[in-house]
């Protein structure tokens, strides 16, 4: 949502905000220590894939943490948020105890605050730009924990408001994929009066939120509440439907769909292309996590079990790698290890996940890169040959790139290897729709900020446009696409002139 600086300043001058500002002196706010998120004990939580690690703040903890926030005149935290949530406004609502109002502030801009509060990399976004970090060199206000608190409070209160819907305009719009990008798009479009159908290839709605991110970080119940809300608002969900295979985009056009949003994500696993990589026992993080999260392979009596092993090696340093290695631990691995070619500092995973992984006994081999897999006589992987790396001198871009140290090779025993070295866009839509401009990476090309592709009635966003990115960016794209598709459709079918 576009909001002027003036609007934000005026909001800050509202009577209740001024009262709060006066109530506690800045000096006293500063003496409060940052709240610690209550956690399940590591030795307990590793017994199940479905025990959430973070337990959430109590109302007292949340109000106390909210008091730390200085309600800055110039809230730099908002600049750190990819969708510019009005952060001080929601936090101050928590400080005054109006939690439902706090949640509604979040929802002005974010379609999935309970999700983002749990999975956003806050330490490199809003929290990094917090006054405490920038000016006082102290821990940031726990914006993410507070976001989660407000969203959870609303959900648990049972008082989730269904937004007002515009009168139905009868125009049919199809959404391809049901990840965070598609869900936020669908929500905005149904509010505007469109007839929205979401087509999902899998049997579950939610994209990576369901099949990728494990329940110990993001319980399915949290996502389901959002999906049910959309259902109540009139969004239709069609599962087990692969657009481009079950039916083509052209078929859908013939069925009366006037425009399309492609949110088909980046679910194509990438491999390293090193010798032995196709041995048995080596699988992509995608397959590994999907089997556990979506098909219940963690259950002892599962019909679709996943490979378990004594020594599990996970290659990579992102969230996907952390989720895989922690899943391996929960499936009973004695030794679960991360092998990552750069140093810990460069790991793209959220800091909290790395911290939790260490608490759970995950081993880390950084500046280490696999160069070959060795299989036994049955073709099953038994060892990984790795090589130590060192960081080279900074290059023109200022980056220190890892360089192999020759002669440093050694082997690690591995009964299962999970490769989590990145993903590529799902190729089906880019390859099957004629006239769609696609980059060499396989991402769909769109007009920036409009999210419109080379085919005027096809919009796209999220990972299919960005490659692997984040939930909040995917969600933001969905909202931008909805706003612009609305203009496009109104002008074309309802002969309404819309101000741009």
């Amino acid at each position, binding site marked *: 949502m576009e909001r002027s600086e003036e609007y934000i300043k005026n909001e800050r001058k509202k009577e209740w905000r001024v009262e709060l500002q006066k109530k506690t002196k800045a000096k006293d706010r500063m003496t409060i220590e940052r709240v610690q998120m209550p956690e399940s004990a590591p030795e307990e939580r590793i017994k199940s894939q479905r025990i959430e690690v973070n337990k959430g703040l109590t109302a007292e903890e949340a109000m106390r943490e909210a008091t730390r926030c200085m309600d800055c005149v110039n809230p730099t935290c908002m600049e750190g948020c990819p969708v510019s949530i009005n952060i001080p406004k929601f936090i101050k609502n928590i400080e005054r105890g109006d939690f439902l109002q706090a949640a509604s502030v979040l929802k002005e801009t974010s379609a999935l605050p309970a999700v983002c509060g749990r999975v956003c990399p806050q330490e490199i976004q809003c929290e990094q730009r917090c006054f405490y970090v920038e000016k006082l060199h102290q821990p940031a206000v726990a914006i993410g924990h507070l976001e989660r608190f407000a969203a959870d409070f609303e959900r648990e209160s049972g008082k989730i408001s269904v937004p007002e819907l515009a009168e139905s305009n009868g125009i049919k719009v199809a959404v391809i994929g049901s990840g965070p990008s598609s869900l936020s798009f669908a929500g905005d479009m149904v509010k505007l009066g469109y007839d929205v159908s979401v087509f999902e290839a899998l049997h579950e709605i939610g994209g990576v939120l369901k099949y990728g991110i494990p329940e110990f970080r993001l319980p399915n119940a949290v996502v389901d509440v959002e999906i049910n809300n959309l259902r109540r608002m009139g969004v239709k969900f069609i599962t087990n439907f692969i657009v481009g295979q079950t039916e083509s985009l052209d078929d859908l056009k013939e069925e009366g769909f006037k425009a399309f949003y492609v949110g088909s994500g980046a679910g194509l696993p990438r491999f390293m*292309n090193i010798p032995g990589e196709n041995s048995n026992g080596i699988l992509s993080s995608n397959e590994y996590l999907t089997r556990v999260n979506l098909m219940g392979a963690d259950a002892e009596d599962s019909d679709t079990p996943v490979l378990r092993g004594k020594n599990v090696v996970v290659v990579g340093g992102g969230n*996907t790698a952390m989720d895989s290695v922690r899943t391996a631990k929960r499936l009973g691995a004695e030794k679960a290890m991360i092998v990552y070619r750069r140093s810990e500092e460069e790991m*793209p995973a959220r800091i909290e996940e790395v911290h939790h992984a260490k608490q759970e006994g995950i081993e880390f081999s950084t500046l280490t890169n696999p160069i070959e897999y060795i299989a036994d006589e049955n073709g099953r992987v038994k060892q990984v040959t790795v090589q130590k790396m060192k960081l080279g001198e900074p290059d023109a*871009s200022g980056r220190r790139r890892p*360089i*192999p140290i020759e002669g440093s090779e050694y082997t690690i025993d591995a009964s299962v290897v999970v490769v989590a*070295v*990145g993903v*590529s866009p799902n190729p089906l839509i880019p*390859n099957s729709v004629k006239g769609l401009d696609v980059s060499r990476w396989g991402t769909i090309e769109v007009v920036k900020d409009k999210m419109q592709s080379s085919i005027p009635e096809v919009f796209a966003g999220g990972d299919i446009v960005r490659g692997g990115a984040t939930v909040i960016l995917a969600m933001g794209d969905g909202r931008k696409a909805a706003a612009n598709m609305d203009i496009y459709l109104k002008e074309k079918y309802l002969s309404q002139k819309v101000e741009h």
Partner: protein
Amino acid sequence: MKEFNSLDDILDFAINEEQMAADFYTDLAAKMKNQEMKDTFEQYALEEIGHRTKLEAIKNGKAYKIADSKIVDLKIADYLVEVDTEKTNISYQEALILAMKKEKSAFKLYNDLASATTDAASKKVFLMLAQEEAKHKLRFEIEYDNNILTEN
């Protein structure tokens, strides 16, 4: 090993190598199913033509220098398996692997030729050529490091 009779002979050989590389990429481009990969290989072909032009200028008397500092070798390609160039659906990752490996073998060729020759002027030309190839390889390695080796 190939015999060279003059510096021009060496440069002609290298110019021809660049042209062959360009032709190789042009052929691949024609074979690809997807437009974006056709475009990619056509761009690689153009880059090779650029290298050829640079060598032709040197042959025509343009001065060249060998940099003192060694070109960084990220050694990314060294451990990767060969790409099957028969297939028509090469991915961008595979295209980069192919290009890195090609530049690497050209580098190795000129480096070996430099070591094998005793003539100082010829050695200098070979080293210059090796350095050029190392630079080309680094360009692909950086692209690979930035875009393929990105975990999420």
